[in-house]
């Protein structure tokens, strides 16, 4: 029997950052265009930490509830807080804003992010009680000892002369993010904050992954970052290798890394690349890490404001996965059943799913009903529907079911049953690459180990046309399979 690499473990984290919503791409532009009027409308609609913690989709994301819980729960979910919601879940945690500000500062090696002395005195001790960040020097990266906190006057002076953007918490300015260059837009403060947020959240996810595996950072051989930022200066915008910066931040001293970019399909590509590197024996193990996307915070805020809802896109989300050789117990990533979207396939959603789902299954004599559970783009519909963007996972599941019906694999009347049985309700924040199927890996791993699932397929799509270099869309899929003994 041919062996395949396995995904041993997955970690998912959230950072609740209501005061960074204004720096999401959509609110940032709208606030400027409205001369600040939108900011006044946004502020009362931002959720506090307790509300974000007790939000059922967030608890599902963290592994404190199964995706099935959303099927049974009445909407609006935001109006029905989960009793006894927990910060730390089976897969990771939801970190409060004041702690994540400190984490951003720890991840900053260039004195870009200033925090007030008083704020640091109150927030840093909280972080030192954190189970993964308590160790002396944890998260200090190569930056070493950080300068002390700054006074408010110095921070306000930076903001006033246009060299920094304010960072707020609890209704006051607690710091600022400074630009690193006057005339290079790639190093302006809004871009650097975006990059730093990706680095710090990705590093947090990686710490959780290592803790779950009980391995030291030094055991990591290689990192692939599938994050959606574009690190670089004006001569190499998007130059990247945030993977290596994250490896350094977490102390993975024996690792190197690089980035895999493919719009929202990046994480699925990265997992396939990771598995291929392990299978070829190039590296002993590969960690795939995806940091959070600041640009996507508040993306649907206009719809939420119009419907008088809370602003639900207030969390950065990040993830990490450990890919290694067959360990005799973890679900296998079937490298012989990867689905890809060839240039010649065109751009219709039906053609896309035929390429990503039907074709790889057909190669092995399987049909659509041989997959127990499909993970598509798992955007939380409570976020997208009020903004007129529909229910993304449901639309994809219905298309899959329609293809199964057209192929005669199910009856037309069984479309709803197919969707209910093999699909799921979207539970991920609209963080671009993060919802792209792979958060379900964390839920699927125990289900595949315990024999509750036999085969799960992960399908992601990338909107290449947004970059204006091609009219094409893209996509990739892979199958995780239980071992024979539990299948």
């Amino acid at each position, binding site marked *: 029997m041919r062996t395949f690499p396995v995904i041993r473990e997955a970690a998912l984290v959230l950072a609740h950052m209501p005061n960074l919503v204004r720096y999401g791409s959509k609110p940032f532009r709208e606030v400027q265009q409205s001369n600040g009027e939108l900011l006044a409308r946004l502020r009362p609609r931002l959720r506090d930490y307790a509300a974000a913690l007790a939000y059922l989709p967030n608890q599902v994301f963290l592994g404190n509830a199964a995706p099935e819980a959303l099927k049974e729960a009445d909407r609006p979910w935001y109006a029905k807080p989960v009793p006894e919601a927990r910060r730390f879940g089976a897969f990771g945690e939801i970190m409060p804003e004041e702690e994540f500000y400190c984490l951003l500062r720890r991840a900053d090696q260039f004195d870009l992010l200033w925090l007030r002395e008083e704020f640091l005195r109150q927030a840093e001790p909280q972080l030192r009680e954190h189970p993964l960040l308590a160790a002396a020097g944890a998260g200090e990266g190569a930056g070493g000892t950080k300068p002390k906190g700054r006074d408010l006057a110095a921070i306000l002076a930076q903001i006033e002369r246009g060299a920094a953007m304010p960072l707020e918490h609890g209704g006051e300015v607690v710091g600022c993010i400074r630009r690193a260059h006057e005339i290079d837009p790639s190093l302006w403060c809004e871009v650097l904050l975006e990059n730093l947020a990706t680095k710090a959240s990705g590093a947090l996810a990686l710490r959780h992954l290592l803790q779950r595996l009980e391995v030291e950072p030094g055991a990591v051989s290689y990192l692939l970052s599938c994050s959606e930022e574009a690190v670089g200066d004006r001569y190499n915008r998007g130059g990247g290798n945030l993977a290596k910066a994250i490896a350094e931040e977490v102390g993975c001293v024996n690792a190197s890394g690089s980035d895999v970019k493919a719009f929202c399909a990046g994480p699925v590509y990265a997992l396939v690349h990771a598995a291929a590197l392990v299978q070829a024996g190039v590296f002993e193990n590969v960690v795939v890490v995806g940091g959070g996307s600041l640009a996507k915070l508040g993306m649907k805020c206009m719809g939420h404001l119009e419907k008088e809802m809370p602003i639900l896109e207030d969390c950065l989300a990040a993830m990490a996965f450990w890919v290694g050789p067959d360990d005799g117990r973890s679900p296998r990533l079937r490298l012989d059943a990867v689905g890809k979207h060839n240039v010649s396939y065109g751009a219709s959603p039906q053609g896309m799913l035929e390429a990503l789902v039907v074709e790889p299954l057909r190669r092995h004599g399987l049909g659509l009903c041989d997959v127990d559970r499909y993970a598509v783009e798992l955007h939380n519909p409570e976020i997208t529907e009020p903004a007129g963007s*529909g229910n993304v996972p449901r639309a994809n599941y219905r298309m899959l079911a329609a293809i199964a019906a057209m192929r005669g694999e199910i009856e037309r009347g069984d479309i709803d049953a197919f969707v209910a049985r093999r699909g799921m309700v979207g539970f991920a924040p609209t963080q671009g690459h993060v919802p792209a199927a792979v958060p379900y890996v964390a839920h699927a791993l125990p289900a595949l180990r315990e024999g509750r699932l036999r085969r799960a397929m992960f399908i992601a799509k990338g909107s290449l046309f947004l970059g204006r270099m091609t009219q094409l869309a893209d996509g990739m899929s892979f199958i995780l399979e239980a071992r024979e003994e539990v299948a």
Partner: protein
Amino acid sequence: MLKGKKVIAIGERDGVPGPVIAELAAAAGAEVVYQTTECFV
């Protein structure tokens, strides 16, 4: 059917792509002045 009409075609990633709408509109006699495909997530 669309002869003499100008068309702006806005497609969607999970729906009908912009170039497809543009081609159909052009076949129906329209002048397609702009077409794009957007992703709303």
